[in-house]
């Protein structure tokens, strides 16, 4: 049969399914709840991350007490160069007791050397707490520079010293020995990286949610059509492949819409929260997005990979659902897909804790690749070639499922009886092949 005929009517199944998904009261309520949940997300994170910061004090003044014979230059002048500290009121003398919106520092002698003791204010709100840390660093620089100047260092030497030096740890077995000029600039320390872990987990959870929702909906929908005895009525108009593909695509659009609503909620929440609360506690999340380098190209890679993964699990769910005869069997049908999705998620998370070699290799494996390849690419652990290879292999897996569906879906969709698991469905396809060969 011509392949084009197999998919005739897909568009109509797609639009009907999508419209019904959007009309469903349960789905509308779920979307509204998701939107409000997203709106609340940022304030909740901010509240739990920064505790009492919202009610904290502002840092308005700074007391500096010099108990040594050193002549300290004008601190006010030094701080004026810093955008965040230029408005701070600098006072000489001892930090008075009971003042809430201030901090202080004492320069004293300890065992013959000058020591700077910073009198930190623990009640400052988050933003001002950061300001206090910056102030501490600035004061230290001023005093240290003065100490070196007194020791005879000229201005050029002081500027050179101010640049400091950095330290990196690289594992020698990760360096390319054949390369005459190895590039050491990549920051790959091999150890636990919180940002890396968070980004992997975030992407995996996104994909897992997408696939889990699709699997649940498609399995239930296929069984509902079978159990409602609608299949005969539908099959007289559309081929089983079109019936399945239309559903898979409609759910994809619905889930994308659902997630867009959530993202819109988060963005609105972020905008409003930044006006009302101190959102410095979200700097970690910001760091994750920065580390992922979300350019148009990278987003496209995420999109293509996610869609490939989604289509794979959607088709698998359709096949497993068609092996059931009633809704009570849906749990069993979903378990095959759930196990694979969980496997992809777990492998993605665990490889972020282990060696990068394993992550690189597993990034091209079908099923695992959809959870791993995009983040590994964005982190620079695999190249574009590996991403394309992973797409190719995942596409091959999808084609294999389509081939399997074409063999057995027509039988499965009208099948009534004990639930057929995925292996039995594969065996059924094998038997049919043998019968076809015999008939030929």
């Amino acid at each position: 049969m011509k392949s084009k005929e197999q998919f005739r009517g897909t568009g109509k199944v797609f639009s009907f399914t999508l419209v019904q998904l959007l009309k469903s009261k349960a789905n509308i309520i779920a979307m509204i709840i998701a939107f409000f949940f997203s709106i609340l997300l940022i304030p909740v994170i901010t509240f739990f991350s920064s505790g009492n910061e919202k009610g904290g004090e502002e840092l308005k003044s700074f007391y500096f007490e010099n108990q040594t014979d050193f002549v300290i230059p004008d601190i006010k002048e030094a701080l004026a160069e810093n955008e965040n500290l230029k408005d701070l009121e600098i006072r000489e003398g001892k930090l008075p007791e009971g003042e809430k919106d201030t901090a202080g520092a004492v320069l004293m002698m300890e065992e013959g050397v000058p020591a700077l003791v910073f009198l930190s204010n623990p009640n400052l709100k988050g933003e001002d707490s950061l300001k206090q840390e910056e102030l501490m660093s600035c004061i230290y620089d001023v005093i240290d520079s003065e100490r070196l100047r007194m020791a005879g260092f000229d201005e050029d030497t002081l500027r050179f010293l101010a640049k400091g030096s950095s330290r990196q740890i690289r594992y020698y077995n990760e360096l390319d020995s054949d390369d005459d000029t190895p590039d050491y600039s990549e920051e790959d320390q091999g150890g636990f990286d919180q940002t890396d872990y968070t980004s992997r987990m975030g992407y995996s959870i996104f994909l897992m949610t997408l696939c889990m929702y699709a699997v649940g909906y498609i399995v239930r929908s296929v069984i509902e059509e079978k159990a409602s005895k609608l299949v005969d009525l539908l099959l007289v108009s559309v081929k089983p492949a079109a019936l399945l593909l239309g559903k898979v695509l409609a759910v994809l659009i619905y889930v994308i819409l659902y997630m867009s609503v959530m993202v819109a909620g988060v963005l609105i929440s972020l905008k409003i929260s930044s006006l009302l609360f101190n959102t410095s506690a979200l700097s970690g999340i910001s760091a994750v997005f920065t580390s992922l380098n979300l350019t148009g190209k990278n987003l496209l890679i995420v999109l293509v990979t996610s869609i490939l993964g989604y289509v794979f699990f959607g088709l698998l769910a359709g096949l497993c659902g068609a092996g059931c005869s009633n809704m009570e069997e849906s749990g069993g049908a979903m378990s095959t897909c759930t196990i694979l999705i969980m496997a992809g998620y777990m492998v993605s998370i665990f490889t972020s804790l282990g060696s990068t070699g394993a992550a690189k290799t597993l990034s091209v494996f079908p099923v695992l690749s959809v959870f791993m390849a995009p983040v590994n690419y964005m982190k620079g652990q695999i190249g574009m070639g590996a991403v394309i290879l992973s797409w190719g292999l995942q596409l091959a897996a999808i084609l294999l499922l389509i081939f399997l569906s074409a063999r057995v879906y027509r039988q499965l969709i009208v099948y009534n009886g004990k639930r057929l698991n995925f292996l039995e469905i594969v065996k059924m396809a094998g038997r049919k092949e043998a019968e076809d060969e015999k008939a030929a």
Partner: protein
Amino acid sequence: MSLQVSHLHKKYGTKVVVDDLSFSMSGPGVYALLGTNGAGKTTSIRMMLDMLARDGGEALWNGKPLSTESCNVGYLAEERGLYPKYALMDQLVYFATLRGVAKDEAKKRIRSLAERLEVEEYLYPNQPVIQADTGRRRPAFGVKKEKPRLADQLSKGNQQKIQFMAAMLSDPELIVLDEPLSGLDPVNTDLIRDVIREEIARGKYLIMSSHQMATVEEFCTDITILDRSKTVLQGNLNDIKKSYGRVNLHLKCERDISGYIKASGAQILSEKEYEYQLKVTGEIQANQLLSQLISAGIPVITFDLREPSLHEIFVEKVGEVHEE
């Protein structure tokens, strides 16, 4: 137009469920596929319509393989269903558009069929009120707007009428009705009968499968009786009946005539207050019995000599196979 079904064959594992089924329709009319439960009727229909893979045989429509692409088919399946939680109108429009009917045209056809099958109140819950005096329609002011009806809010009979509508929406040239009247009350049965009669009059090709022999007898010209996957009787219904001869005698008198009946050699099938259902060997035996009664001065109220009914033929044929 013609329909040619040849040597359809299907087996599941080692069990043969349809064994070499062949029949044809060279002109418009109604063909009946009859059989006991599990005889293979529904499987045959599914194979004919290319919904189920065949192990052998073919079905041709105008010389080309029959499929929903080559022929506009309306199919009312034995296992009927609707989406329980979707609005009825949405479903009907969906089923029509799947068959290639434009949305606007589908809505017109839905309105027309809804009126004929008396299901407007479920499909148009907020339709304008018809004024009794003028017959004009006016908006239902002050009436709370009702939500579109869902399939699971309808009785089984009304659901069946909606499903029948779904089969007829594409104005099909070949209509396949699997047990179209089962479970319907007499009023609704008549509504669907009327639509079927109209379709026959419009020159449509119908294939009907039913256990209600009176319905089949009313509409069908040709039949195939299946039993346990095999064809046990096939042909034109009138010819089949003629081949059996007129052997059913309905006789009613004013007093007991059982002695005369026994003497004539006729077999009494049932008896109630001097009203007898008899099985005779033919017209000669029946006429002899009538002559004897007249000669004896017994008033005869009813003398009706008929061919066997389809029900009797069916039971006889299927019974023969089971006895073998």
